[in-house]
């Protein structure tokens, strides 16, 4: 019986580690994407990954470490708040850019770089 509990205990922290590392990976990928991707909308897409996937995974990992405590409830509330607000913020920014007539980069990167800033019509 106690070995089962011990295994569960180890599994909990192992899983938490996996979640935290995964979250860290998505945050890092988002940061690299914001720096490297070619235009506004693709960069926004990268930033959105950081906000939703990265923070959700990190919060899940922290909740596993905290266990059944008040801290976990607070983390869950933070997660809910981020889960609702960050996609909304991304949407608002993209919508504003679209309304301001910022054209997305279509076609391959090189094609658009060559000359026409039409946005490419395929």
């Amino acid at each position: 019986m106690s070995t089962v509990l011990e295994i569960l205990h180890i599994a909990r922290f192992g899983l938490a580690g996996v979640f935290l590392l995964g979250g860290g990976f998505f945050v890092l990928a988002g940061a690299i994407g914001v720096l490297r991707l070619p235009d506004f909308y693709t960069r926004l897409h990268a930033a959105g990954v950081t906000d939703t996937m990265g923070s959700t995974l990190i919060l899940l990992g922290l909740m596993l470490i905290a266990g059944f405590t008040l801290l976990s409830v607070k983390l869950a509330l933070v997660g809910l708040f981020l889960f609702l607000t960050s996609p909304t913020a991304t949407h608002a920014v993209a919508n504003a850019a679209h309304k301001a007539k910022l054209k997305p980069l279509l076609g391959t990167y090189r094609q658009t770089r060559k000359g026409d800033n039409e946005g490419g019509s395929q």
Partner: protein
Amino acid sequence: MNADFITPLDAFTIIDLILMLMLLIVGLAIVRLNDIFAIVMLAGVYSLVSALWFVSLDAVDVAFTEAAVGAGISTVLMLGAMLLSSRTALPAKPVRKWASFFIVLATGAALMYAVTDMPSFGDPLSAPNAYVGLEYLKRSLPDTEIPNVVSSVLASYRGYDTLGETSVILTAGLGVMLILGMGGKINGQLKKKAIDYDNADAQAHHTVLRVVSKMMIPLIVLYGFYVQFHGDFGPGGGFQAGVIIASAVILYALIFGVDAAKAAVPPLVVRIGAALGVLIYGGTGIAGLILGSNYLDYNVLDPHSAPHGQELGIMSIEIGVLITVCSVMLVIFYGFTSRQPDITDKDW
């Protein structure tokens, strides 16, 4: 001051150093940029990073205030101010550049000179770790029976200082009112104008923003009250709660229009509230005088138990702080926004 003490270079100190380096980089970026919009955003980033730094220094109450005021509401107010002026700063004239360079150089040199007199970080004999600070930490729990020592120091031992801060906030609000006007139209005129928040056409735009903010605004206000009344037990209090509740109203104004916000929270109420908060704070002090003790002495508020009196006093002045901070933030916001046409749907 203890000259022999050297700050240990452990993990926390290294994190502090990295955060300070980030602050330096953001500061340099702000100096180098001409785009005011980017500068305002970077100022928000600066506040967030310093909030992180304060958390790492275990000053969670200060970090909370910095995140709410510096990164949150002041960014919005700066954006409001920016809409009234141009979006890029003109390059300065060479003469002015050199003059300001020398002023900055002299100030920096003076500050660097002063740093040599500061105690090392974590020095057990430094001023905050000796004298009156230790006394507060020792006496706070028996005196007030409030677990969060920050609240008891802020509201009870240092009640005069906080009264001064609250008055400064009121003064700032008065200054904005005198320069930018009293927050626009009076109620009567407002009602005549059709408010379009129920308009089907307006509903069609920003549907996502409207739905999510409708869900969020009550939660934000609720959280503000939690921060207010939980301030005795954890980080938080009137300053943070006031800013959070004001930010809920500002969010409402950004999504549904300033007119709708003014209908929900009229400028007149906000103007009265700004003064009422300071009145509640000062009135608590007067109550102490009437009951036969010193100004801002809460021990006498409850004749049977001094700690309970302290709790009552702290709660009542925190409510005063909440009302003043929340109202002044809205006074400033209304002041800025009533100087320009509302952002129409077309401009989004």
